C-alpha cells in the first residue's frame, strides 16, 4: 500500500516537509504544490540533515505551480518529475490514500 503526500509550504518557514518526510515510506510519492514548490531547492539538504533517504521516494511537482513561481522544468533535479493537473488526479487514483500536509 502506498500513500500520496502533498506539501504546500516551503521548509524554511514551516516544518511540514520535515514532518512529511519522517513518516513517508519507500513506496510513497511526494507531490509538491503551491508554495511547497520552493522545496525543490532545499529538499536534498533537508533530507540529508534529517538523515532520511529520500531517493526511495518518488518526488513530483505540480507544473503550473512551478511555472508561476518562475522556475522551469529544465531546472528540476533529475529525480523530480513535473506533473500537470491530470497527472495530479492520476497520482491520487494510483495511491491507496492521500495525506495533505498544509
Amino acid at each position, binding site marked *: 500500500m502506498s500513500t500520496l503526500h502533498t506539501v504546500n509550504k516551503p521548509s*524554511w*518557514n514551516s516544518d511540514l516537509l520535515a514532518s512529511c518526510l519522517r513518516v513517508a515510506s519507500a513506496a510513497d510519492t511526494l507531490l509538491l504544490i*503551491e508554495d511547497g514548490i520552493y522545496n525543490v*531547492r*532545499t529538499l536534498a539538504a533537508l533530507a540529508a540533515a534529517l538523515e532520511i533517504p529520500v531517493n526511495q521516494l518518488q518526488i513530483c511537482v505540480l507544473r503550473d505551480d512551478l*511555472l*508561476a*513561481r*518562475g*522556475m522551469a522544468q529544465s531546472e528540476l533535479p533529475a529525480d523530480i518529475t513535473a506533473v500537470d493537473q491530470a497527472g495530479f488526479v492520476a497520482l491520487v487514483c494510483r495511491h491507496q490514500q492521500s495525506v495533505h500536509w498544509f
Partner: protein
Amino acid sequence: MDTAPVQKQFTFLARRSPYGSGHARAMLDMVLATAVFDQKVTLIFLDDGVLQLQRNQAAAGIGAKDLGAALGVLPLYDIQQIFVDGQSLQLRGMSPQELAIPATVCDSARISQLLHESDVVFTL
C-alpha cells in the same frame, strides 16, 4: 484656507510569497496608492517577500496575474527606493543578479536604519 501638503516617509515590508496568499498583491496596491498621494515610499523585500522578485514568473496556469511583471510599474510611480535583504535571498537559493526588477541588496543593519528613518511602516 490653504494648508501645506503633508509628506511622510512610508516604508513597506513585503514578507510574503507572491501566490501563497493575497498579501503580496495587496501590498503592491498599498504601495502604489501611497505613491499616488505623493508620499515618500521605500519598499523592502524581506523573508519570503524576496520570492516576489523571482524572474520569469508565469502565473496564468494557476489563474493569477504575474506579480513579477506587475512590480515593473514601480518606476512609473517614481518609486526608486527598493531594497532586498541579501540574507533572505541567499537562504532561498536566489541570486541578486536574477531579480525581476532592480533592487538594492542590503543587510539587516540597513533595514533597521530604514525603519528608523520612517514615519509609517506597513508589514504585509
